[in-house]
């Protein structure tokens, strides 16, 4: 009996590779939903503080930024916003590249550019948030 059902398996042998049993796409899908919700709060909060509250953009200067980043809370806020936005955006663009790149080489190089830019921006941003020195002369 079981040999018969084996014979039925994959009629006309499909051209697709066997499933890789990886949960990567599932996790990236879940990450997009969760980071999306968090980003709505983080980004709208950020925009509200920066542009509307207390005179908005006009009060932003070196001292204002220095003051905020002296608090671990705002450091954490900006850090999570940076990481989440970068990963969320990168994953979105990765999906678009997967959809629209026709050739494997194009896909490969576009992704290299994408991942390099993401790593650079995340690294520089994280570095600035952690090593920001409020005492450098602000001209």
């Amino acid at each position, binding site marked *: 009996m079981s040999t018969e059902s084996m014979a039925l398996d994959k009629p006309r042998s499909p051209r697709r590779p066997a499933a890789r049993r990886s949960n990567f796409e*599932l996790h990236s899908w879940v990450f997009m939903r969760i980071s999306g919700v968090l980003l709505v709060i983080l980004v709208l909060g950020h925009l509200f503080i920066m542009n509307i509250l207390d005179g908005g953009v006009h009060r932003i200067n070196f001292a204002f930024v220095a003051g905020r980043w002296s608090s671990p809370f705002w450091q954490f806020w900006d850090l999570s916003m940076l990481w989440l936005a970068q990963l969320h955006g990168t994953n979105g663009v990765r999906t678009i590249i997967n959809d629209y790149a026709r050739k494997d080489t194009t896909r490969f190089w576009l992704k290299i550019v994408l991942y390099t830019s993401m790593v650079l921006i995340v690294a520089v941003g994280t570095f600035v948030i952690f090593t920001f020195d409020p005492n450098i002369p602000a001209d």
Partner: protein
Amino acid sequence: MSRAVSSEDTRSEAERPGPKPAPVPEGSRPVSVKIQRFNPEFDDEPHWETFEVPALPTDRVLNLLHYVKWYLDGTLAFRRSCAHGVCGSDAVQINGINRLACKVLLKDMLAAGKQTTITVAPIKGLPVQKDLCVDMEPFFEAFKAVKPYLIAYGNEPSRERIQSPADRERFDDTTKCILCAACTTSCPVYWADGSYFGPAAIVNAHRFIFDSRDQGAEERLDILNDVDGVWRCRTTFNCTDACPRGIQVTKAIQEVKRALLFKRV
């Protein structure tokens, strides 16, 4: 050989050889049928051709295609078999939306008081072979890849496999699929990259995944969990709109996603 009918010919018009005059049924009105044509032997690119066809409100778009093929241009190629929405061979793009030509009534398309133009194009995302005929092989390949047949292990039961009405209900919607490809070829993700399994394959996987008699759910879920599986779906609902059988296609895809997410069928 000349096809001219000599004056001595005493046969009635219908019996004479040669092209018959195109009949114009009583109560019909002329409609422009704009068809995307492509003949791989002569054309590099598809082009549009318009035919004037007398249409009755009770006609279906398929009747117009028949009229063109039978009376105006016999070279027109399209598929149809049952002509009653059962076989799924005549999915085409009508006025930009995927429909079965045999299920779209003219009375819903005739514009009051002005000339009606109906465009008919092949479904998108599959290679066009000729005119409205597309190569369905990639579509069936994705269908076969999800193992759309009962998988059961162990000894074969000596009697019928019993199922409760509630268990049957879970996959009732997806049993209705006639594999017309209207859903898959309305999906923008499928247009862009044909390696996506597409809604129809997922619908047919759903039909077995949620069947209590089947034991292959895990294999199929593994297949649909991969890069070309359900996670490529962006929930655009084009497939649900396109399905001539009224299957809630997007919902079926979401149910598969949920089964993967919560590891529960």
